[in-house]
């Protein structure tokens, strides 16, 4: 497409479950951002690291916001940052930490963009304490085709503000945002609490609800299902535990991890990895933790992601309310014992918020379950059964994580699905913003 910096390219989701040849625009100036024909379907693309096809597909032109990564205003006294939406979270954390601030809610991948974090309303290392990304968002600017940019916040056009957070880019292109910052912990220590099962993990998580870092790792194999460790990152006053530096950008996990030519995470590989992790980490103890490790644990997971091979992985993420969690965890253990899926990892986190629209929030415990070779019959059947089990226990899915979720399941699992969908439609009546995610879930 002449004059718009658009070219055909092959894009794929981070979990490798969706590939498409699509038009990718690389605007490097504001006028190019709004230069596409008025009726051209489009979707903003930040770091391109979402597990699902949220920034391409569905016949849309992907608009890369790579060039829109500038800091527009920084109040070093009160901790406010206005930044363009293409800025990478890892780069921002490096900038802010040098100046005594940080973003307390950050996704695990440092190449995620600010716009992507808003569009997905991501959670960080302890959503029960820090909320989700929108908690720290004061205002944003949304560009809609051939219209003046809209500046919105909780008072001015609160409906568009609410719809844009966890709106998956479907209300318009997020151009910039004003974020509130927090003072980082001067130092961190990581306390490890071994747990025998998921129910015990939930109890430990609830007891440590105020820790800056809080998550569990669990064995997903049938033999030791749920056994693992809850990691509690605590602020420390000890200068020996200094945490306030991040490794350089070159150490960031790449947007695309080259897969191994084979699937390392077969049953034998997963059993061996779980035994090693069990031996290495599932012991009570305490050790200093760097903020880099706390904020971006995925930087150390390059080999882990490569190990899924070309078949990739899928992550099902369900948030189950506290009163139903123990029953859910027990039923899940039974399901795994029956079906023996290739679960590579289970992570647990505590939530204490209120869901709005399609956001992944609520009051309960979330499990992220990563499954190898998700297209295989057994794994697919497990993921379907997991969804039914979670819905039966009032679970809420994370739409931005799970590429195997079907529209009918999402509609049943999310209270107010139709209302949230109608809200998106109000802000984009022509449905010009679309993506593979929007198509698959009929958003």
């Amino acid at each position, binding site marked *: 497409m002449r*004059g718009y910096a658009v070219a055909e390219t092959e894009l794929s989701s981070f979990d490798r479950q969706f590939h498409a040849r699509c038009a990718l625009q690389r605007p490097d*100036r504001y006028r190019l951002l709004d230069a596409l024909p008025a009726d051209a379907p489009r979707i903003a693309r930040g770091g391109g690291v979402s597990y699902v096809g949220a920034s391409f597909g569905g016949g849309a032109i992907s608009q890369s916001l790579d*060039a829109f990564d500038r800091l527009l205003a920084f109040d070093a006294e009160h901790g406010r940052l206005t930044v363009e939406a293409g800025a990478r979270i890892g780069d921002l954390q490096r900038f802010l930490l040098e100046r005594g601030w940080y973003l307390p809610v950050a996704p695990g991948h440092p190449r995620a963009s600010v716009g992507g974090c808003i569009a997905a309303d991501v959670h960080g290392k302890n959503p029960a304490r820090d909320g989700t990304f929108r908690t720290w968002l004061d205002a944003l600017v949304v560009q809609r085709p051939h219209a003046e940019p809209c500046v919105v916040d909780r008072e001015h056009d609160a409906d568009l503000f609410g719809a844009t957070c966890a709106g998956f880019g479907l209300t318009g292109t997020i151009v910039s945002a004003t974020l509130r910052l927090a003072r980082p912990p001067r130092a961190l220590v990581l306390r490890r609490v071994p747990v025998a099962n998921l129910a015990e993990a939930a109890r430990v998580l609830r007891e440590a609800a105020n820790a800056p870092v809080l998550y569990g790792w669990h064995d997903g194999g049938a033999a030791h299902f749920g056994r693992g460790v809850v990691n509690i990152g605590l602020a420390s006053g000890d200068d020996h535990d200094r945490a306030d530096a991040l490794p350089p950008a070159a150490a960031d996990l790449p947007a695309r991890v080259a897969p191994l030519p084979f699937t390392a995470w077969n049953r034998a590989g997963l059993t061996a990895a779980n035994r090693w992790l069990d031996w290495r980490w599932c012991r009570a103890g305490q050790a200093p933790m760097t903020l880099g490790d706390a904020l971006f644990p995925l930087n150390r997971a390059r080999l882990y992601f490569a190990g899924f091979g070309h078949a990739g992985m899928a992550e099902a993420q369900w948030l189950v309310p506290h009163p139903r969690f123990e029953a859910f965890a027990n039923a899940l253990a039974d399901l795994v014992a029956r079906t023996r899926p290739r679960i590579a990892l289970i992570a647990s986190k505590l939530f204490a918020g209120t869901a709005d629209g399609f956001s992944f929030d609520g009051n309960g415990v979330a499990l992220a379950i990563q499954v190898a070779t998700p297209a295989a019959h057994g794994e697919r059947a497990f993921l379907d059964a997991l969804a039914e089990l979670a819905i039966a226990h009032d679970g809420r899915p994370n739409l931005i994580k799970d590429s195997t979720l079907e529209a009918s399941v999402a509609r049943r699992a999310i209270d107010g699905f139709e209302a949230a969908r109608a809200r998106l439609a109000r802000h984009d009546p022509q449905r010009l913003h679309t993506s593979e995610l929007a198509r698959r879930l009929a958003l």
Partner: protein
Amino acid sequence: MTAVVVGASSGLGRALANELARCGHALLLVASDLRDIDAIAADLRIRHGATVRSLALDLAREADPGARVAAALEGLPPLASVLLPVGLSRADDDFGLDAARIGELLAINLHAPFAIAHALLPRLREARGVIVLFSSIAAVRGRGRNVVYAAAKRGIESLYESLRQRHRETELRVQLYRLGFLATNLTHGLALPMPAAAPDDVARLVVERLRRGSARWYLPRRFALVAMVVRLLPWPLFRRMQS
């Protein structure tokens, strides 16, 4: 000392602005859209504490861009360098342009660098400053594509020679870069015969060499060989390449 970057909103110009600010230069950034250069200026102030001023100029239509740039320098530290990575190419610059479009290409690629260089010469000579001009591998030999663009860039090479011939090295330094493919939105999606260089890498080299004397360089360097081959190709062979 102040550096002027014309065409600072994207690609190499933006990379140069960033590198110059990182190295402590005060900046006057010139581009057509204030939204872009204001954003860049804010970013450079926040990241590097740089003194940055923005000037929006439509070089395709501005009658006297040199005067506007000179006026915008008032109040800034003395001028030490003028970098002119400004440029516009069009996919239909293959004898398919009307007179207005030809004029636009010439205004941006040729008239603006000439006018700005002329207007800023007195200030540059006061500080034994440097003018940095940017030509293109496209100017090595005229082809059936980039017709006007290549001719304008050939004109820039002539400007380089004239400036050097007229001014002693002790009063003005002139540097010319013949650029190969850069990874900008102009090359996005094109099937290039060679890998494109990152603008940040090119900008680092250009800023490093600002202290040097007058010279002409290819960037990336491998394009010196490409230019030599293109220049030496026998006419019948070169002509066949056009199709």
